């Protein structure tokens, strides 16, 4: 039976059918298809949740191997497994709104995530410092524009330097906005064309077909 689900034609047929079920109700008024599309989306979400089990198994397996082989940083895997097991146990036993579970989320997961997010500021700074070198006319223009926007955005200098506001607002609101809209149009057009290639069976690498199988 596995040959049936692994065949290119069957995969392509499922792809086209799923596309039509998602695409048609967005544009055409067909309530029955709309209802069916919602049901199908719910079913696929439920089925998708089963993959969580595989992901958790993978995490346990890898962490246990790290600990067993005393690989670099193996101690952190003990923390990881302990807290992961604890959260699974509490979550399954008392639910996700339980006070202990919420404490783990609000006092451990959220602050740790905030730390990683906070570090972003320093990375932005170091990348900016590397990029802002006036090696050409384009780079020089970038620096001038960057410095104007930076000075305006910073709370202290933005309110102190007179006359900087119209230039910074023009750069972000007109130049920056129009370019980001242009990017969005190009990305969406490229994405639709990708869909055309997929639906006509030209580009099927994402379904796991190797090069020879595709052609």
């Amino acid at each position, binding site marked *: 039976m596995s040959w049936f689900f692994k065949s290119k034609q069957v995969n392509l047929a499922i792809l086209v059918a799923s596309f039509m079920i998602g695409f048609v109700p967005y544009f055409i008024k067909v309530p029955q298809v709309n209802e069916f599309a919602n049901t199908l989306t719910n079913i696929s979400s439920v089925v998708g949740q089963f993959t969580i089990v595989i992901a958790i198994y993978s995490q346990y397996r890898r962490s246990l191997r790290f600990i067993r082989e005393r690989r670099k940083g193996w101690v952190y895997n003990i923390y990881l497994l302990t807290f992961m097991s604890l959260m699974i146990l509490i979550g399954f036993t008392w639910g996700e709104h339980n006070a202990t579970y919420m404490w783990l989320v609000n006092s451990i997961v959220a602050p740790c995530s905030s730390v990683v997010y906070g570090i972003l500021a320093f990375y932005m700074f170091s990348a900016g410092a590397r990029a802002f070198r006036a090696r050409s006319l384009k780079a020089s223009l970038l620096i001038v524009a960057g410095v104007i926007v930076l000075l305006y955005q910073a709370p202290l200098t933005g309110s102190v330097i007179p006359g900087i506001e119209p230039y910074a607002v023009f750069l972000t609101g007109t130049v920056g906005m129009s370019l980001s809209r242009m990017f969005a149009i190009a990305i969406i057009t490229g994405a639709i064309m990708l869909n055309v290639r997929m639906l006509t069976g030209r580009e099927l690498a994402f379904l796991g077909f190797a090069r*020879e199988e595709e052609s």
Partner: protein
Amino acid sequence: MAELLFEIPGVESGRAFGLILILGIFILGIYYMRRGKLPYIRRVAAIDAISEAVGRSTEMGKPVLCSYGTGGFGYAVIAAMSILGHVARTCAETDTRLLVPTGGSHTSYLTRELAIDIVKGQYTAAGKPEMYNEDDMPFLSGEQYSFTAGYIGMLVRDRPGAVIMTGGHSSEAMNIAEMSNLVGALTITSGTYVSNMAALACASDYIMLVDEQPAAGAYLSKDPEQLATIRVVDIYKVLSLLLIVVGLLVLNTTGNDFIRRLLAS
């Protein structure tokens, strides 16, 4: 919202012109595919650099780290899967270890299974199924920043020779790209999240911008039929720009909002 220029019976209000545009892309795409005439395609440095990145890692005896984004099945992740397949195949052919960190969001569990299937498939197609190691495709976390911390941990521990970070990455992309630079890896990224592009361009050695990533699969395949479709994207980009410029000129000089109403339809 602007007044509609026209409506088509049976089509949702305000989506008729969009439907015509999309159907137009489909028809033009199929036409160009059938024609198979190869248009001029400029060199995309970031995509060409993938082979260089894998070669560099092979020579240095280091692994390649390739990720496909943190989201669910969006176009960016699908395009990134094509790139992952290409990287896996090149790694298999050159006996280079490939690391693929997975996870990053609640919708990433499903894409992970597909990524595993792709890597396994490419190793098998290259005649080296034994190269597949489940531990090289770890699930790091379903939370964005836990995933980021795990990703950075892999970069520091395994010191890859190249990092190919494609697909939809959000703010974590900057942490990863900068850390990749710090460990001396050749960094190739893709900017699909518009707000991220400028920052990623600063942090990466090569970056795929705008529609380069969706076109990567076609570009890498070197198949004339697929490459021909890239011309359609160019046609639509020019058409969009013309509509915007003409619409602005006409609106500001004559006060006629024909194009605005057309786009609102």
